[in-house]
C-alpha cells in the first residue's frame, strides 16, 4: 500500500512538472512576444527592447524557463502586467470565492444525485424513475451559463429576490450577504452538475441491482436492504468515486463560467479578464493553480478508491482496465 502510494505521489509530481512545462511553452512560444501586452501598437523599438528586458523575453528560452521555474519553487508567480499586483495573493483572494462556490455546490449536487440516481435506477420502469432520468438527460444538455442567465432573469431581475450580480464589498466579513449573493450561482451549478452525476449513479446502481452477488444474497434470505447495504454500496462506490473526482474538477470549471454570469470576482472572472488583456503572469498563475487542484483532486479520488477496493491496490498501470 505505502509503496503504491509513493509511486502515485511520484506520478502526481511528474504530471505537475509536465503541466508546468506545457503551460510555459504554450504561453511563451506561441503568442509571439509577451512584451506586446505591456505596450501600445505604435511603441518605439527602444520601448519594445526595454519591455522585453523587463519581462525577460530577451534571454534564451532555457534561461527563461530556469528563472521562471526557480521563482515558482519559491512560490513567486510574478506580477500582473496590467495591475502590477503579485499574482499569488490575487489568486488567493479569488479562491476565497471560487472554492466555497465549488465545494458547496459540489456537496449539494453529490447528495442530491446519489438520492435521485438511486431512485431513478430502483424505479426505472415507473413514471417516477423515468421523470428523474428525463430531467438528468435534459440537465446535461443545458449550457451552465444559460441556466444562470435564466435564473437571473426570473429570480433577480423580475422578482428581486436575489442580487443579480456581484459580491459584498467586505467579502466574507458579511457572511449572510456573501451566502445570499452565492445562492443563485450555487443553484445554477447544482442543477447542471447533479444531472450528470445522477446519470452515473443511476447506471452504477443499475449494474449493482442486476449483479449476481445481490441475487445470491437475496436467494440466501437477506432482505433487499441488507443485501444492498452490505454488498452493493461498497461495490457501487468504487466507480462512483472516480467519477466524483472528475465531476469535482468539472464543478470547478463550471464555477469559473458561472462566476462570469454573476460577475463574481473569483478565479474564473480573473482568468477571462487575464486572457482578454494578454496578462500572461496572471494566466500562467491561474492555469497552474487550477491544474494543481485538478491533479490533486484526481490523486485523492484515486487514493480513496484504493482504500475502499483492495483489488485496485495491486494492478499496474500498464494492465488493461
Amino acid at each position, binding site marked *: 500500500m505505502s509503496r503504491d502510494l509513493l509511486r502515485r505521489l511520484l*506520478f502526481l509530481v511528474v*504530471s505537475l512538472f*509536465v503541466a508546468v512545462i506545457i*503551460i510555459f511553452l*504554450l*504561453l511563451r512560444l*506561441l*503568442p509571439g512576444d509577451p512584451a506586446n501586452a505591456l505596450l501600445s501598437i505604435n511603441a518605439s523599438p527602444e520601448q519594445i527592447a526595454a519591455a522585453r528586458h523587463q519581462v525577460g523575453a530577451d534571454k534564451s528560452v532555457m534561461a527563461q524557463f530556469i528563472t521562471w521555474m526557480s521563482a515558482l519553487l519559491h512560490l513567486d508567480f510574478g506580477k500582473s502586467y496590467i495591475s502590477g499586483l503579485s499574482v499569488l495573493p490575487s489568486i488567493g483572494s479569488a479562491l476565497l470565492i471560487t472554492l466555497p462556490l465549488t465545494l458547496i455546490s459540489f456537496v449539494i449536487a453529490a447528495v442530491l444525485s446519489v438520492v435521485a440516481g438511486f431512485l431513478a435506477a430502483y424505479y*426505472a420502469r415507473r413514471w417516477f424513475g423515468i421523470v428523474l*432520468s428525463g430531467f438528468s*438527460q*435534459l440537465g*446535461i*444538455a*443545458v*449550457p*451552465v*451559463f*444559460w441556466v444562470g*442567465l*435564466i435564473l*437571473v*432573469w426570473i429570480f433577480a*431581475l*423580475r422578482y428581486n429576490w436575489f442580487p443579480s450580480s456581484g459580491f459584498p464589498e467586505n467579502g466574507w466579513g458579511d457572511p449572510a450577504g456573501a451566502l445570499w449573493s452565492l445562492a443563485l450561482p450555487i443553484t445554477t451549478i447544482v442543477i447542471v452538475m447533479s444531472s450528470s452525476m445522477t446519470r452515473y449513479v443511476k*447506471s452504477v446502481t*443499475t449494474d449493482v441491482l442486476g449483479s449476481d452477488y445481490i441475487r445470491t444474497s437475496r436467494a440466501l434470505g437477506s432482505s433487499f436492504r441488507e443485501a444492498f447495504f452490505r454488498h452493493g454500496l461498497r461495490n457501487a462506490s468504487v466507480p462512483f468515486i472516480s467519477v466524483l*473526482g*472528475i465531476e469535482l*474538477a*468539472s464543478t*470547478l*470549471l463550471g464555477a*469559473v*463560467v458561472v462566476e*462570469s*454570469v454573476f460577475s463574481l470576482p473569483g478565479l474564473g472572472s480573473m*482568468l*477571462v479578464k*487575464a*486572457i*482578454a488583456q494578454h496578462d500572461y503572469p496572471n*494566466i500562467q498563475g491561474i*492555469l497552474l493553480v*487550477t*491544474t494543481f487542484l*485538478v*491533479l490533486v*483532486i*484526481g490523486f485523492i479520488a484515486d487514493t480513496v478508491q484504493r482504500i475502499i477496493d483492495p483489488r485496485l491496490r495491486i494492478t499496474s*498501470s*500498464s494492465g*488493461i*482496465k
Partner: protein
Amino acid sequence: MSTAKAARARLSTFHGSPTFAIGIFFTSFIFIVALVSLIWSPYKLDDTTGNRLEGPNATHLLGTDTLGRDLLSQLMVGARIAMKVGFGATGIALIIGCFLGLLAAFFPGWIDDTLASIFDTLIAFPTLLLAMLIIAAEGASLWAAILAIGIAASAIVSRIVRILTKRILAQQYVVAAKTCGTSRWEILRGHVLPNLWPTLIVNLAIIYGVAVLTEAGLSYLGLGAPPPSYSWGRLLREAQSTVLTAPLGAIAPGIAIILLVLGMNFVADGLRELFDPTQRGNS
C-alpha cells in the same frame, strides 16, 4: 460487410425506439436549418432596419436585437457555426485519437505506457480548461476554439481506441490470424476497425454535444470568435443585458443549443442500444 448488414437488420427492429427517433429528429432539424441559412434567411445579418428589441411579430418571428437585427436570421447562421464546431472538433478528435490510440495499442512497452499515462492525466482535465489554455496562447477565434476542443476531446477518443484495440488484439482469433502471418495492416483493417467503430461512433456523438456546449461557453465568455459572430453562445452574451425587456433573445439561443446537444445525446443512446442489445431499456 456482415457487421454493417447486421446493424441494418437491427436498425429495422429498432424503428420503434423513441430515443433514437427523437435524437435524429432534433439533430436533423438543426442541420436542415443550417443548410437553409446558406441560401436563405429572413433578413440579411447587417440589416438593421427593424426596431430595436422588438418582441416576436409577423415581420420578425422571434423579434430583434439591440441593433434591430432579426433574431431568427442570427439563430439560423448560428446553427451553421454550431455545425462547424461539432463536426470540426469531432473530426480532429477522431483523427488524433485514432492515431495515438492505435499507436499505443499496437506498440506495447514504453510507447504504450507513456501514452496511456498522458491520456489518463488529460482525461481528468475538463475540456473547457484545456480549451482556455490553448486559446490563451493562440488568441480567440472560431478555429482556435474548434482546434482546442478537438485536441481536448482527442484524449477521450485515444483512451477508448487504446483500450478497445488492446482487448480486440488479445482475442484468440486475432492471435490465430497473427500466427498465420497476417500483417499488422490486415489485422487493423479486418479485425480491429470493424469491432472498433460501433463504440467509437457512440462516443463521437457525445463528443459532438460536448463540443457544441464548450464552444457556446467560450463564446459566452468572449473567448470564441470575436464579433461580428453569430455563435449561439455570443448571442446569449449579448442578450444578457437586455433579458428583462427582450427575454426571447436570451431564451431562443439556449433552446437551440439544448435541441442540438440533447438530440446528439439521444442519438448516442439510441446507437448504443442499437449496437449492444443488452443495453436496451437502460438509457
